[in-house]
């Protein structure tokens, strides 16, 4: 851990009496891109601001590049941040914006502008040097904001939902650019987003947050395939979460209508069963080992067809490769799934988490 670029050691932050984040512990290695992911209000921005030094922790320790910076103000930490609104200074032109940080740190003017110019070149912005931020497009503003942050060669580069002000097409392109840049220059990045696909696309690791705590962290694949809770399962892509109980027997198992799923959990445990839509497929006739149901609605989505199926365990979402015709409403079907693709999660922790949280 000692060579981690950033370490959070059970950090908490309280605003007045409101505990925004608590007991946050994680580490970010050098050259790694880590995303903070979670629903609105879960404390992602707060964690990022704690890293930046814009908030001071009320508990715990923050270490950047081996130095305890828990009480060091933002202006003296070697980080840089790209803001959601970009926060370009409207009264300075592009190059003045980029040189600002260098000048603030007392670099001489000629050298600061020279470095800023090189940074702009690197990002393909050389032609915009003398424009005011109001005279360039949203995507260009975003890149200027990145240039302004990068020119300082920070130990950790922070992004707070940098794509939320761009349109959908541009978003995909810019996130690829950010990832390329990070790999090319070997940057250490913490990236906040509430968009699961964005997080999965660019991250080495994702930290999922909920109610001011870390719900789970791991590689995108880990989180998708082995979610530790129904919340994470649901947040990382589409999932059907069905409540059930482990039944006693020779081997304990969970039964969903005709579908029987073996498990190691003790009989009587309340569990959530996670069924991904793309793992399930529809049999035209309800056979043994399937969940019987009736099609309520089918939607044609181009590459895929998506069905909402009413079953004894609730309405389930199933997606299949699109066939020539959609199944009609009311068609009886059986839902089959490979038990290897099913996640069974004991529910206790989850319930305890919600119960302990004053926000509910």
């Amino acid at each position: 851990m000692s060579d981690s670029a950033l370490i959070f050691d059970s950090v908490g932050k309280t605003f007045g009496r409101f505990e925004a984040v608590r007991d946050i512990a994680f580490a970010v290695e050098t050259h790694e891109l880590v995303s903070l992911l979670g629903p609105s209000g879960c404390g992602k921005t707060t964690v990022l601001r704690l890293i930046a030094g814009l908030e001071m922790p009320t508990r715990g320790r923050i270490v950047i590049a081996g130095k305890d910076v828990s009480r060091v103000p933002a202006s003296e930490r070697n980080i840089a941040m790209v803001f959601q609104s970009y926060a370009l200074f409207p009264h300075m032109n592009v190059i003045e914006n980029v040189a600002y940080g260098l000048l603030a740190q007392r670099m001489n003017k000629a050298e600061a502008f020279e470095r800023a110019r090189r940074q702009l070149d690197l990002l393909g912005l050389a032609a915009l040097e003398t424009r005011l931020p109001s005279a360039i497009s949203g995507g260009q503003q975003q890149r200027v904001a990145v240039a302004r942050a990068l020119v300082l060669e920070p130990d950790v580069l922070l992004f707070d939902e940098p794509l939320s002000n761009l349109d959908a097409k541009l978003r995909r392109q810019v996130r690829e650019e950010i990832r390329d840049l990070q790999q090319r220059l070997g940057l250490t990045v913490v990236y906040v987003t509430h968009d699961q696909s964005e997080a999965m696309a660019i991250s080495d690791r994702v930290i999922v947050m909920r109610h001011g705590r870390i719900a789970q962290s791991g590689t995108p694949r880990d989180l998708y395939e082995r979610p530790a809770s129904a919340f994470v399962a649901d947040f990382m892509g589409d999932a059907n979460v069905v409540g059930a109980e482990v039944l006693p027997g020779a081997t304990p198992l969970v039964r969903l209508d005709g579908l029987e799923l073996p498990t190691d959990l003790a009989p009587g445990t309340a569990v959530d069963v996670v069924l991904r839509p793309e793992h399930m497929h529809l049999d035209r006739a309800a056979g043994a080992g399937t969940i019987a149901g009736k099609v309520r609605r089918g939607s044609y989505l181009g590459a895929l067809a998506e069905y909402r199926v009413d079953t004894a365990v609730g309405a389930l979402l199933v997606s299949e490769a699109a066939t020539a015709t959609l199944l009609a409403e009311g068609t009886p079907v059986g839902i089959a799934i490979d038990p290897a693709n099913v996640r069974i999660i004991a529910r206790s922790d989850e319930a305890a988490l919600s119960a302990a949280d004053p926000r509910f």
Partner: protein
Amino acid sequence: MNGGLLGLSLSGLAATLPVAAAALAAFLLTLRGTRGAALVTLAVTLGGAVWVLVSGGLAGTPYDAEAPLSLANQPAMGWGATITLIALLGLAAGALARRGAMDGDAFGNHLLVFSSAVLAIFVLFPVVQVLQEVMRPAASGSLAEGLAERFLGKDLWGLDCLAGGKRCGMVWNSLWLGIAVGLATTLIGLAAALFTTRIRSPFTGPARLVTLLPLVTPPFVVGLALILLFGRSGSVTLFMYDVFDIRPSRWIYGPQGVWLAQTLGLTPLAFMVIHATLVSVSPSVEEAASTLRASRWRTFRTVTLPLIRPGLANAFLLTFIESLADLGNPLVLGGGFRVLASGIYFKIVGAQADLGEAAGLAVVLLVISLAAFLLQVLWLRNTSFVTVTGKGDGGQHARLSVPLKTGIIALTLVWGALILTVYGTIILGSFATLWGRDYSLTLANYVDAFNVIAGEHGLVWAGGAWNSFGTTMMLATLAAPLTAALGLLMAYLIARRRFTGRRTFEFAAMMSFAMPGTVIGLAYVLAFNTPPIEITGTAFILVIAFVSRNMPIGLRVGLAQFSQLDPSLDEASTTLGAGPGTTLRRVLFPLLKPAVATAVIYAFVASVTTLSQVIFLVSPRYDWATTYIIGLVENTNYGRAIAYSVVLIVLLILVVALLQLILRRVEFRRLDTNKSRETA
């Protein structure tokens, strides 16, 4: 004073020992740097600072040569004590930061501690002195009797005038006058605002300009013009006598005259407030009402009027407060009619001088004024401002119904005509040889006031006005940027930092806005005439009075601007490695220039035109333009008084125009800011 802290404590002056001890302790504790040590440092340094003030305050007995070092012989604070005080406060701020206040931001903590100290010493402390003066027992030694004398007197609460008697108490006079002025100004202000925003006419532009004229005019100058028009030898009076044989009378002297002068002088204030509210009413709301088949009058009554009600209330309360505080017009036009503000004046300078009774009047005036101010604050807080959407929604404002339109035009025109007459009179009056008798034009008045002779040893400033004019310009120029800076820095603190007691701090800072000038003047006389802070008769006291009284305007303007400025701009600057000083200078100041300009303009104009604040504080050495003019008026030297006023008005217009020019340039840039935020 002579002898520094070290010398005094070495020579055994007991009063200085605690300070020396505190300084030493703070120094040692600062070396330790733990949180606990910081708490002790805080206590020690604040204790030391309080001791500096209190030990000074214990002084006051005549110098006793027997015991040269006794506490009672403490002189007023000199430079050494001032520097010590500042140093102790600075140490306290540092300790606060080390305690983790404002996330350990040293800059913010210093700002908070020093501005709180300014508020405490120059606003709170003087008010407490007034209260203390009121609480002084009567000659008989009884406190209750003293209080009764000061608060229950007939000259305060008498209601004789209702029963056919001659006079009512000053409290009633002030209240009635304030309410009448508030109502009239709000009504005319509303009419003028509707006229300029909802009625298309070639007069709209000129009307706006004319409405702004009184803002740069010392208030009593309007009263002066009224005397020239309607006084016993006024031009209108004499004309009426010649033509209709109406005998000249003194009707203008009394409540009517004061009311008329204040209404003319304060309507622009009401106009500006209502105008701002009116333009923020989105036309689409009115359009919606008319598509719902509401008649024009109904739309106005049920949609527009309720939407601008906060603006109307605000205008009423502001002009009410200003009317209460006005001293000039009651002095010039009051005759036997006394209000609280002029009452205080006569209790201090008159034959019946009595500081206790003056303090009593000041307390009553302060309470009424603060109550109105509180109402205003609460009102504004609970009715959030009208639909401010930022997106320019198109659409047309509803047309006004014909009778309403007629009323508005009539009212605005009458008012405009009056204003023009008043200013015409002022300009003519300054050039007339002897108003009422001899209207031949002359420059004598100006020459009297502003004569310059080329003497043997260079220029001689022979005009009588030069002394007060020079002081006024110099001190107002000095005070204006200080005032604006203090107000804006406080706004920065309140808008951008979290700390306990922030709301209280904001309220305390705003409060001095509601303190009538005469009350401040009296309070300063009581507070700063004796040690620890002895500054009456200096230029310093004038500057301080302006700064603490006018700082709220910078605060208000600043708060409004900060709420429109994305906080991530400051945060971006911080994460880029800039300290708070650099951020303020390179990011916030350029973006806040309009607020800076407004605050500076206001502070300058307010301190040049005020009479009530300075009248007790001026000295022969530091005389003020307004007090000098009032002196001329008292000697019925109207011509010279008016000429001097004209010079002031023209000068203020030039200054405002100059600053506006800078402001215009900034507004061009502000457009860019808005645009970039939209695309962002």
